């Protein structure tokens, strides 16, 4: 877990790392958006999450995501804006997290890594999300 936190801190701008990203096949991830411009206002500091489970999600917003596991590529991804997650903390204590905004996006992104899902699997549009006509007249 310390490795995950170190990896996150060492990568400029990174706000989370999941164990599978560093070659460890455990359902553990860390998230900390407190130093990010989008997460400064609303965050729970450093979150160490073991076996996180998404209990509920609400709302939807699109954000352009990048990931250190897919360098030099970014894409627009739709995520819940509010989530409720159950997990065990670093001491094995049961915890509940209700969060919203950027922290919620980061938690969903890291939890996806635990299922082998990359943001690439969730890209909603290659281009700007404009309505495209089906028929050209």
């Amino acid at each position, binding site marked *: 877990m310390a490795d995950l936190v170190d990896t996150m801190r060492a990568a400029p701008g990174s706000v989370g790392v999941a164990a599978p990203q560093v070659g460890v096949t455990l359902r553990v991830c860390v998230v900390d958006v407190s130093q990010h411009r989008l997460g400064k206002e609303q965050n729970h500091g450093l979150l160490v999450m073991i076996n996180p489970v998404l209990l509920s999600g609400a709302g939807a917003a699109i954000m352009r*995501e990048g990931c250190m596991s897919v360098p030099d590529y970014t894409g627009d991804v739709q995520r819940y804006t509010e989530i409720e997650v159950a997990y065990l903390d670093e001491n094995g204590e049961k915890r509940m997290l209700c969060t919203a905004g950027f922290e919620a996006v*980061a938690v969903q992104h890291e939890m996806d890594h635990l299922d082998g899902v990359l943001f690439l699997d969730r890209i909603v549009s290659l281009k700007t999300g404009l309505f495209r*006509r089906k028929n*050209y007249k």
Partner: protein
Amino acid sequence: MDEPKSDTAYFAVSVIGKDRPGIVAGAAEVLYRLGCNIEDSSCTMLAGEFAMILIVTHEKPFSKAHLVEEFVAYSKGMELSVFVRGLKRDEVEYHSPQGELCVITVYGADRPGIVYRVTRELADRSINITDLNTKLIGTSAAPVYILVIEAELTEGTSSEDVERLLHTIKEELAVEITVRIVTPVAL
């Protein structure tokens, strides 16, 4: 894309023709058989046309004539326009955007000059366009033009600065213009 290699030949290839299934497969087959790699590409439908733009590479020695020859054979009978250009090393180097990325959306009643006026204003401020799409929607009686630009802002420029910059054009062309930052978040 990695740093350009001196032992590699780089080409820009474009293929445009009436849209139908198989255009990409046909072009990709030509490249595959020649042993070319597709390094970067963007392909899309534009009205009833399908347009492919690709950066392809092949280990040297490899002649452009050979590539053209194969593409001409492929495009024959398919009514496709194919264009091939050899690239110099400095043309291939990719510089990822350093400044904030923003999306500028412009829309309003169709009239001449929407694309020109907006992009000229950006160019004069050295704001680099990284992507641009336009679409004509609505009815022929009331056509609406949509222009969506993704651009890299220069150091110290905010989305509000860009909105202010385009304010005069907005008034003159009677269009709506919104600017929002879409700089990717590293997760």
